[in-house]
């Protein structure tokens, strides 16, 4: 319990610090101005989100192998947190694009792939909501999670190739390519902060899921009597 509180504290502090750094420490970008600062938050969330999905994938594999409920709790927690972070990416992308190009969405390769990723994990959560029995739900969603994650690189590749056929404005440019050293530091600090924050959210969500599971078990036992 104490560890959780410490993690929470550290996570929130880091996020605030990262935000401060993004706005006040990093120099203003030459061509795009202050709106570019959203880049730190956008990419930080994207990387943390992808890592959350990766941990979800590992949890799914472990569940199919070992069948311990704890892997199921971890899987759903990572999926939900990953989804939240991915939503942030999808919202901050257009917020950045609009002032720069005057359009909200350009079917940019990375953003489009992220959108498909988002849909996949929405489906994952939807599938879970449609299966009542806990062991069934854990197994089937783990299997879908595995298929979905295997699909992710394929999605990114195929959409990137598709975009080479029909080029369009690239949002955010190459992340981290040719960044000023201070910007680089702020960038990686943001990545760290978002990862710690994600870890904190995952832990909390895990605890909630575990409690939900226990309540559900008790309810079922009570109904059976």
């Amino acid at each position, binding site marked *: 319990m104490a560890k959780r509180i410490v993690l929470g504290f550290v996570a929130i502090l880091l996020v605030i610090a990262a935000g401060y750094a993004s706005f006040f420490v990093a120099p203003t970008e030459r061509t795009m101005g202050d709106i570019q600062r959203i880049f730190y938050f956008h990419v930080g969330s994207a990387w943390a989100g992808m890592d959350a999905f990766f941990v979800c994938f590992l949890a799914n594999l472990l569940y199919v192998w070992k069948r311990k409920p704890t892997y199921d709790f971890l899987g759903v927690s990572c999926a939900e947190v990953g989804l939240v972070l991915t939503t942030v990416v999808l919202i901050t992308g257009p917020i950045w694009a609009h002032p720069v190009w005057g359009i909200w969405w350009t079917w940019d390769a990375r953003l489009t792939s992220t959108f498909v990723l988002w849909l996949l994990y929405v489906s994952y959560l939807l*599938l879970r909501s449609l299966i009542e029995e806990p062991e069934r739900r854990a197994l089937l969603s783990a299997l879908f999670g595995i298929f979905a994650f295997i699909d992710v690189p394929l999605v990114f590749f195929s959409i990137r190739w598709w975009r080479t056929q029909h080029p369009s404005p690239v949002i955010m440019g190459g992340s981290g390519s040719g960044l000023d050293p201070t910007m680089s530091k702020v960038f990686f600090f943001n990545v760290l902060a978002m990862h710690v924050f994600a870890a904190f959210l995952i832990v909390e969500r895990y605890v909630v899921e575990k409690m939900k599971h226990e309540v559900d078990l008790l309810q079922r036992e009570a109904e059976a009597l």
Partner: protein
Amino acid sequence: MSLLSNTATLLGKELRTEFRSRELLTTTVVFILVVLILFSFAINPTSEESREFGPGLLWLAILFAASLMLQPCFLREQANDTLSSLRLAVSDPFSIFLAKLIANTLFLLLTEVLMLPLFAAFYNIPVLPQLHYLLLVLFLGSLGVSIAGTALSAISAQARMRELLLPLLLLPLLTPVLVVSATVSVSLLDREPVVQWKGIGFLAVFDLIFLTALWLFGEYLLEE
């Protein structure tokens, strides 16, 4: 080898069942037809635009049709619990999936081949010159749709709202197939056709990856 002989036996069963009633084939053909017609009402293409949009719409129609056609795949095994008797009888549960995905690929291909002349007519796109490459793309794409669709159909059959669930699970997963197949098809049917081998290679890789995943995890999909 038992896996192959079991697959052949089950494939025979799948084909025999379908050709006796032909319900899947007829409904799928009609559905693609309706979708293609509706697309042309909604978009109203001139001849030039057709070449750019047409193939993409064809693939969309195929995907929608497949997500409906694949639903009965495992649902029909629930009626008399024949899935259990199959699982008891076969030496490798993968043969159940193999048989079904081969059958589904064949059904899809059959409907596509039937639709091709109509598609060519509606959208004013000559398909004969590049027919062999087009068939290759249709085959690889349909195989991908079948592999993923058969696997996910086993999952959705065990959940509620399965009619809506299968398309929701399947369509995002098949984005790579849609994107690449459509792009390759557009190139093929262009005024100056180009064969995009990279795209075709990608489809083959997609098929291989998901077939392997199904081989590794298939038996858990059927577990009780």
